[in-house]
């Protein structure tokens, strides 16, 4: 009888412990990291303009940011994102919807965090930045995300150029801007700042300076944003 109790009790206990640990792990794993304390020497390649800034400064809206929504809104959503990441595509479409719905209440800011394990992430960031110089950042952003599955497994650049043409960009200007090291430096600065904020995964979303767990639906995302109003 004791043996039977030990066997079945042991099984139930083992399953309960394993389940508990796995649920805890699953709960923590995708959670966005909270901002880390600023480490002075943490990133040698951080842009000079940001090296002395606090986390709050990094997350504050800046004139050069790519934004959607109301610049005076009480809710500021800063997103570190990668153009080739499928999860980022999902969030881009949610941001698009919510930036229309909540245009008066929220300011959405896009920052680059191109992961190195994606082949075309950085190129996509460069194209959006170059397009941004012709006031077409969001147009290029949308085309790149909407067509992500098309270009991410083929030759991306001809497709990006096609997007640029469809946005009626000045292609000579675009080519000059694509070669401009300042664009690369800007992307690097975003990446370094993201690292300082503790970004380890994309998308990482900060609302009013607070790292949030990525919501799993449009409704949850909307509710979360509105809770900061």
């Amino acid at each position, binding site marked *: 009888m004791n043996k039977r109790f030990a066997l079945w009790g042991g099984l139930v206990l083992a399953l309960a412990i394993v389940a508990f640990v796995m649920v805890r792990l699953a709960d923590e794993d995708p959670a966005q990291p909270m901002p880390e304390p600023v480490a002075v020497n943490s990133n040698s390649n951080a842009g000079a303009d940001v090296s002395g800034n606090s986390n709050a400064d990094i997350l504050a809206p800046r004139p050069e940011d790519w934004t959607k929504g109301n610049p005076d809104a009480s809710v500021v959503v800063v997103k570190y994102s990668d153009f080739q990441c499928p999860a*980022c595509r999902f969030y881009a479409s949610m941001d698009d919807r919510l930036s229309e719905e909540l245009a008066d209440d929220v300011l959405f800011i896009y920052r680059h965090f191109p992961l190195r394990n994606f082949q075309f992430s950085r190129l996509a960031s460069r194209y959006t930045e170059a397009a941004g110089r012709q006031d077409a950042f969001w147009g290029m952003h949308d085309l790149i995300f909407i067509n992500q599955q098309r270009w991410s497994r083929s030759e991306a650049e001809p497709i990006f150029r096609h997007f640029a043409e469809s946005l009626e960009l000045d292609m000579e200007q675009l080519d000059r801007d694509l070669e401009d090291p300042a664009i690369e430096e800007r992307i690097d600065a975003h990446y370094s700042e993201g690292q300082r904020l503790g970004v380890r995964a994309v998308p990482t979303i900060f609302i009013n300076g607070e790292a949030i767990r990525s919501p799993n639906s449009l409704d*949850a995302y909307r509710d979360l944003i509105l809770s900061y109003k």
Partner: protein
Amino acid sequence: MTRPVKRSSSPFAWVVAFIVIALIGFADAMYLAASHYIGALPTCTIVAGCDEVALSEYSTIGPIPVAVFGVLFYTVMLIASVVWLDVRNSVALRYLPFLTVPAFLFSMWLVYLMIFVIEAICVYCFVSAGTTTLLMLLSLHLRRQV
């Protein structure tokens, strides 16, 4: 008849191995199922890349995540093993391949989808494919032993 003499002692170690592997599979499937339900969508990380598989349409069967079937499968495997440890009734082990072989084939189908259709790798799915394969091999071995 020499077989009954060998029966009582030899399968024990194999059943313990079976339990250990099933527990690993259970943990793996539980993690995936919990990730599905707890809320946050899989993100792409610096270290592990992107969990594209979990975002794909193949991660669920209807409304139910594939991982939930995994949790059920490994739970049944563990119960069957403990039944054998408890009552030493060979029936508990003899019919295991009726579940482990279909589970193995289903796992292979998922691996095929991962590599050739979704074209993305999910480490946890490979772990599950590995444990399912081992459980099938062990169950076929146990079936011969008992």
